[in-house]
């Protein structure tokens, strides 16, 4: 067990991501150029005439051929210049840096919530396959994934904010009267704690609750399903029998042996689930006025905001690459076998 093979493994994953990244850059470029609407017209504002539109088109470099535009796009990318967003008027990089933590805080909270609920459910179902508990778990998680997130979000807002008044108004991450805590991580819950501001923490948490639950409901099913399947498979495997025959207690067998092995495929699934969650995020953020990257993407797309869409997608791609890397690393840590494979 030495470090180098793991380092090599990580290096190889990075290399594997490179062609995908190249593909992403190209697809993004093509896709955004194909977006309808003329940013020059948009930039020119109402009441602009042909001449001023043409001038702005030239200013934006939109009069040049696509390959030329692509080259200058690549050059900008290399220097970290993602352009300026039309819809918010900010440099795209700034936008992403300020908004990403919001999306991440929401997505990660939802994922943690989902894991905290789904894994025990999956284990429970797997230890009693085909029992009513199993059917109930399946029913519940399937119902969760069957609800369109925008619908769940609206329903929760209606119920918990409008009717019951338990939840804060769905308008962002903090109550209006709070100023955001000093930025350390960009996660308001953590930053407010670091700043020692308990009331801001409470507000951040309260605002996080409904959107996180909405998203968690959606991600419950894949995790629970995978846990159940993996647990079932592991519980049926030989080494569990060995462990039982060696007199290990049910607890040790179930959690020490079975669950740990079953977590391997679950970890892999988490990458996928994260991707789903970020996609669903787009709609959830819209419903809860959450100042994240997903709602930003929708707005950008609707106004054909090239730079913003490109920046968003690139940021996402990098995020996924990083995430998959993280998952690989976790996997390597948990599963000693990985070093020898391939």
């Amino acid at each position, binding site marked *: 067990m030495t470090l180098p093979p793991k380092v090599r493994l990580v290096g190889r994953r990075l290399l594997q991501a490179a062609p995908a990244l190249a593909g992403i850059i190209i697809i993004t470029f093509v896709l955004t150029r194909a977006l309808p609407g003329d940013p020059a017209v948009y930039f020119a504002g109402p009441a602009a005439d042909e001449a001023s539109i043409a001038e702005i088109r030239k200013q934006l470099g939109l009069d040049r051929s696509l390959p030329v535009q692509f080259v200058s796009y690549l050059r900008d990318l290399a220097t970290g210049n993602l352009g300026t967003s039309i819809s918010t008027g900010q440099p795209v990089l700034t936008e992403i840096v300020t908004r990403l933590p919001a999306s991440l805080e929401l997505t990660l909270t939802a994922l943690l919530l989902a894991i905290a609920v789904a894994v025990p459910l999956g284990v429970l179902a797997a230890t009693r396959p085909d029992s009513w508990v199993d059917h109930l778990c399946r029913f519940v998680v399937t119902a969760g994934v069957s609800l369109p997130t925008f619908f769940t979000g609206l329903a929760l807002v209606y119920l918990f904010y409008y009717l019951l008044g338990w939840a804060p108004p769905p308008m962002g991450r903090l109550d209006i009267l709070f100023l955001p805590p000093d930025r350390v991580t960009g996660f308001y819950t953590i930053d407010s704690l670091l700043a020692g501001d308990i009331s801001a923490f409470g507000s951040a948490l309260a605002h996080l609750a409904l959107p996180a639950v909405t998203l968690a409901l959606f991600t419950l099913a894949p995790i629970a399903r995978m846990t159940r399947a993996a647990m079932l498979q592991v519980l049926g495997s030989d080494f569990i029998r060995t462990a039982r025959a060696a007199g290990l207690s049910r607890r040790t067998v179930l959690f020490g042996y079975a669950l740990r092995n079953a977590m391997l495929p679950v970890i892999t699934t988490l990458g996928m689930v994260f991707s789903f969650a970020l996609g669903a995020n787009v709609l959830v953020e819209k419903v809860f006025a959450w100042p994240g990257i997903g709602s930003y993407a929708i707005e950008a797309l*609707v106004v054909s905001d090239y730079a913003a869409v490109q920046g968003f997608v690139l940021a996402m791609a990098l995020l996924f690459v990083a995430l998959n890397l993280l998952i690989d690393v976790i996997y390597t840590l948990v599963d000693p076998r990985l070093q020898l494979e391939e």
Partner: protein
Amino acid sequence: MDRRSFLKAGAATTLGASLSAGMLPFLKVLPASAATADTLVVVTGTTINSLDLHRTGTNRPSYQVSVNCYDRLLTFGTKTMPDGSLSYDYAKLEGELAESWEIAPDGDSVTFKLKDATFWDGKPVTAADVKWSLDRAVSVGGFPTVQMKAGSLEKPEQFEVVDAKTFRIKFLRKSKLTLPDLAVPVPFIINSTVAKANATEKDPWAMEYLHRTPAGSGAYKVERWDPGQQLVYTRNDAWKGGPLPAAKRIIMREIPSQSTRRALIERGDIHLSHDIPAKDAKELGALKTVKVVGTPIENCLHVLCTNLNFEPFKDKKVRQAVAYAVPYQEIFQNAAYERGAPMWGAKSAEPTDIAWPQPFPYSTDYDKAKELLSQTAFKDGFEVPLSFDLGTAEWGEPTALLIQEGLAKIGIKATIDKIPGANWRTVALVEKKLPLHLDNFGGWLNTPDYYFFWAYVKGNLFNSSNYDDAEMMQLINETLHMPMDDATYAPKIKRMIAKAFDDVPRIPLYQPNLDVAMRPGLDGYEAWFHRMVDVRPLTFKTA
């Protein structure tokens, strides 16, 4: 009192009373904020994308920064509407930075005396600042320049610094639009010292700097701006442009979800919700806990546009047939929720006065529509896409659906085409290639000729019908700058309106309202042609 009712009671009483179990610490700050109305919360559904109106790409919602943070030389006065609500008064010009103004005896220029106002940094507002700002407006190109041009303000040479507190504008032509055009959000006055300090060779007008950092003399300063989320104003206690605003701090919150906005105002968590849908206006108006102010938007119409570049609509009879096949009443009921003013069913085919907008002499009459259609080459009907801007789907969609149904009754098969907002400007207004579509143009300057100038002159942006008529063109050119008390003005306008009645390239549906919902304790709200919230006069009295 159990916990639940305690929470409910808390929620019912005060501002921001968004109390969840997890939010109890918030209670601590509540009494302080409730005792004073220092802070007001306003929500909108739109995003501010720049703090500088002159910048290319600045969107409409951003104009409010110009209104609230900057001053102009002039502003419009206030009038009380029949229902008791307040509105700007197009007929009454007042000074904002100008102490007084005087038209030269020859009528070729106007001279302004400036107030003893200061910018936020304490520097006095001088004529040089005014000149620099107006120079900027006419030079940067794009919308600001076009809007200035509408007021015959076209060249920096027109602007002259007489002395530190005196400023003169030379007229290119005598136009009734020049002075009102100085009161629109565009010609706002910038602290030129600050701006110049941040200008560069590539950016002589300091666009990048002012984009994020306003430098004005207005009633409110920008405390923070989180694009896509909120804009926080704090009061400029040294404001000279008008009476000092009551609220020290105003939070403009952007909430894209319309139903959330409604819930917020309904639950009393905010003070004002701007530009609410007609349906909400109708329903919230019936509640005691919410005050709804609806003002018909002057010089604005929701219309069905036929495009004369496309075959069936080249024929006037086809256009008239369409105008008879529109279910006006249903649209007014189900799309406008009876907010606004009907624009159909005039008794006479000739306008009786020059009021604009005024009802057109059409009403729903399918027989007449069929008869008209049968006189054309399209008596068996035709197919046509009916487009609307997704951004205006609120009223656009039900309207389009009802029109589709109406047209079907005379054999015209319309397919509905939703066009995303980004696309809309390009295809509808710039390329003008939508055969049949809905439009909501409104002119800032409240004269009929101004509306006609934009919407009935070939090539002008809002003439998405491609309407081109020599007589109309001439009438518009003649009336556009003509004073309204000119004797020939009224007859010419009547002729214009009569032509619009007869040719109907644009079929008016109704005049829309600008509806705003607010807490009952909120006073001072004033409706403006620019459809932004002017936060300066708002006051909130706690019970």
